């Protein structure tokens, strides 16, 4: 698979995502936000970081980058787009995904390993997992508090668009298990069509046992499987 990682001014996980793709057996390249050209791309990643310093609102300025026009078109054609952390925030601002990510309820930056439960394994992003699997990956953000109106939240739940939920060590969606106050403990979602996934936790930092977890591999491997035609829809 050929995956393009978009680098915005202030992106700082572009290299991590690049490496994650390679560890999953794919081919990765970078696209600077001012440039156009997704020709030949099988998938796109909007990486984590602090595009434009998160000034104004996380992701608010980056979504106007020229490269985003290509990403929007790519997504409209059904191309897979993975939006991690700041990428998730950009995707929401750009309307690729519903809702918004506001300040953590503690007002603090949170950096630690977080437990997540797979809510829907029947998607191109999660096909490598089983429904109910409990994963552990780093979170590192100050604005990961997912908010949307009730109708939207109900639709997300009803349509199986909630892919990952914050849970505690026992796998329960308790209040202590919810690090940032996200509505319904939502950690990761997909769009209605299913080709765009956004999540606050960092699968790109959970690819190797030596750095603490391999639970993120599934997402990149699921993407690879799908692109090779084998994966679930």
């Amino acid at each position, binding site marked *: 698979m050929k995956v393009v990682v978009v680098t915005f*001014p202030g992106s700082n996980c572009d290299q991590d995502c690049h490496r994650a793709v390679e560890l999953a057996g794919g081919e990765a390249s970078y696209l600077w936000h001012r440039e156009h050209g997704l020709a030949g791309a099988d998938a796109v990643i909007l990486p984590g970081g602090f595009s434009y*310093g998160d000034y104004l609102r996380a992701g608010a300025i980056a979504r106007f980058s020229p490269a985003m026009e290509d990403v929007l078109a790519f997504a409209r054609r059904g191309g897979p787009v993975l939006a991690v952390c700041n990428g998730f925030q950009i995707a929401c601002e750009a309307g690729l995904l519903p809702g918004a990510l506001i300040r953590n309820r503690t007002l603090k*930056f949170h*950096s630690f390993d977080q437990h997540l439960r797979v809510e829907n394994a029947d998607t191109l992003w999660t096909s490598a997992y089983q429904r109910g699997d409990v994963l552990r990956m780093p979170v590192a953000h100050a604005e990961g508090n997912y908010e949307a109106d009730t109708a939207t939240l109900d639709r997300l739940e009803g349509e199986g668009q909630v892919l990952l939920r914050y849970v505690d060590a026992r796998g329960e969606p308790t209040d202590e298990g919810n690090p940032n106050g996200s509505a319904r403990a939502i950690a990761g979602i997909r769009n209605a069509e299913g080709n765009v996934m956004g999540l606050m936790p960092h699968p790109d930092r959970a690819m190797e046992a030596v750095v603490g977890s391999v639970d993120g591999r599934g997402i990149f491997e699921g993407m690879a499987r799908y692109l090779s035609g084998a994966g679930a829809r």
Partner: protein
Amino acid sequence: MSRQAEAGVAPRAGDPGITPELVADHGLSPDEYELILTALGREPTFTELGVFSAMWSEHCGYKNSKPLLKLLPTEAPWVIEGPGENAGVIDVGDGWAIAFKIESHNHPSAVEPYQGAATGVGGILRDIFTMGARPIATLNSLRFGDLDDGRVRYLFGGVVKGIGDYGNCVGIPNLGGEVYFDRGYEGNPIVNAMAIGLLRADEMIKGEAKGVGNALMVVGARTGRDGIHGATFASEELSEESEHKRPQVQVGDPFTEKLLLEASLELIRSGAITGIQDMGAAGLTSSASEMAGRAGNGVEIDVALVPVRETGMTPYEILLSESQERMLVVAQRGRESEVSRILHKWELEAAVIGRVTDDGLFRVLEGGTPVAEIPALPLTGGCPTYEREGVESAEIRALRGRDLSEYAAPTGDLTDRLLRLIASPNIASKRWVFRQYDTTVRASSVVRPGGDAGVVRIPGTNRGLAATTDCNGRYCYLHPRRGAAIAVAEAARNLACVGALPIAVTNNRNFGNPLKPAIYHQLREAVLGIAEACVAFETPVTGGNVSLYNETEGAAIYPTPVIGMVGVVEDVDRVCRHAFTGEGDHIFLLGTNRDEMGGSEYLYVFQDLVAGEPPQLDLLAERQLQRALLAMITGGLLSSAHDCAEGGLACALVESAIGNGERPLGADVTRADDLAGVPLLFGESQGRVVVSCPSEHA
């Protein structure tokens, strides 16, 4: 330009005339002023006075500390760049090198904790990437007064948030650090930030203004009236009056720093520049004159060409501004536009402001009119240095002599004492702090904060880089020389505990007013202690930073020579952690328990006392212990290793037992010697490590 320059320097209209008061306000003594007159052969202009004042401040000139630096071991076959450059550089094998350094931002953080700490991180990161290294880790060493004070909690919260917000945005993982709370730091917090960067050994670049005719360019953020005279400010005691003198607070912009980091590394790779330096303390003045000084050249700059943020800035202000996120680069003649192109790609500005000259002068013009013309060498190298007489304070000698036997006696329920001790902020988990720092960005953190030392993997290899900061200010207060040596020994021990071989040291000397004999004594003794220990552990000192005048209304902080040490892990799959891993594992104590309660956390918590002889240190035994420990870990024998530090053996055992929050274990130990309960459990004897291993290795 130069024809006008030859017309010589005349006082600038609107600038104040030179008076003894003005000279004194600039922190220059009459003798120092005499030296300026001889260096110039005439009276300085107001602008020149400002320049000298900044360059000859403690912060830039190391007046009182330079002679002491000579006492430190700085050489080893693996040292590529020792003290003097922006950061030390060490060969770590496979063609890789690391640049690393520690720096203080104590004074700015005391005034504005958030921005003070944030800009401290920004400054140390720039010191790293100006060497051509990509920052891969940060650490921070903090000291505050007791937490029950409201102002202290405000400073603590602000400093931690400032460090986090800046480092997180730039995307550098935090690997560890320290926090201590002790009334000895009331009003004078210590904020030391350390950074480590990775580079190909053959891609290093220096801060030199080489090549006559090459262009000087300011790149990055615009220049405003930020922190003017921060350098002199950082060299004074805090007092009512310094509140008025306070420079305009420097505001950090980590987003611009991230762009500047990428742009600088691209610049260096492009070969379009011959030198680059951060505009830190004393901004354009120190960067331009130091780059000239190092290359033995001169520079001519025109302040009218510097991009400014505010209108009506004088040469004095532009030369001394400490606006953040700026760099001075020397561009190959003819490749200036290439430099600009790279900066514009990263949405930053670049401007040619002058040239490298062959006349050895630091010449400044304002729209062509000379406003300063100073021989670069006396400016950068001519700062007078002072070797003073140190005398130990009798009060402290008495404290050290204090008999502690009454406290060593068993006092009722020691379990209760243990519970209260592990709840002390100095021993309790520092999670509240490092959970606000991104510790996993770059996906290479093998051992994160929470253990004895942090470890990051060296990309593309299976080897790792370990780092720690350590210093117990109470030991240094009671016995500066031994205390400083203990800081080095503990740092090396922390590295050994994760399975790393110590290779080099950076140090940050935080002290009071060196003009006071009692303080100078502490400074000198501490340096000697560092030197002895660094020789013993074969860890050369490749750089560091000195922060003096850490006093409020005459009261000095504990002498605090913070040691930042780096080590190499040969196989990251073999690192060792501090938490017990398996039920039934055997627990061993390496080292000897002695009756040593001096300077202990126990005394501070239960007797509100900082007194007694700090623990003895046997450098030879310590080194043998660490070598043995390292062999056991690389041999794969151990399940865990943790050094005994504050709180002694009992606290070390608890930390190992609950070290893995998700799988807490217990420990059942039998005492092997006849020490009384308190010193056995809570004494802080050095050279001790708690290890565990499966029975087949026991």
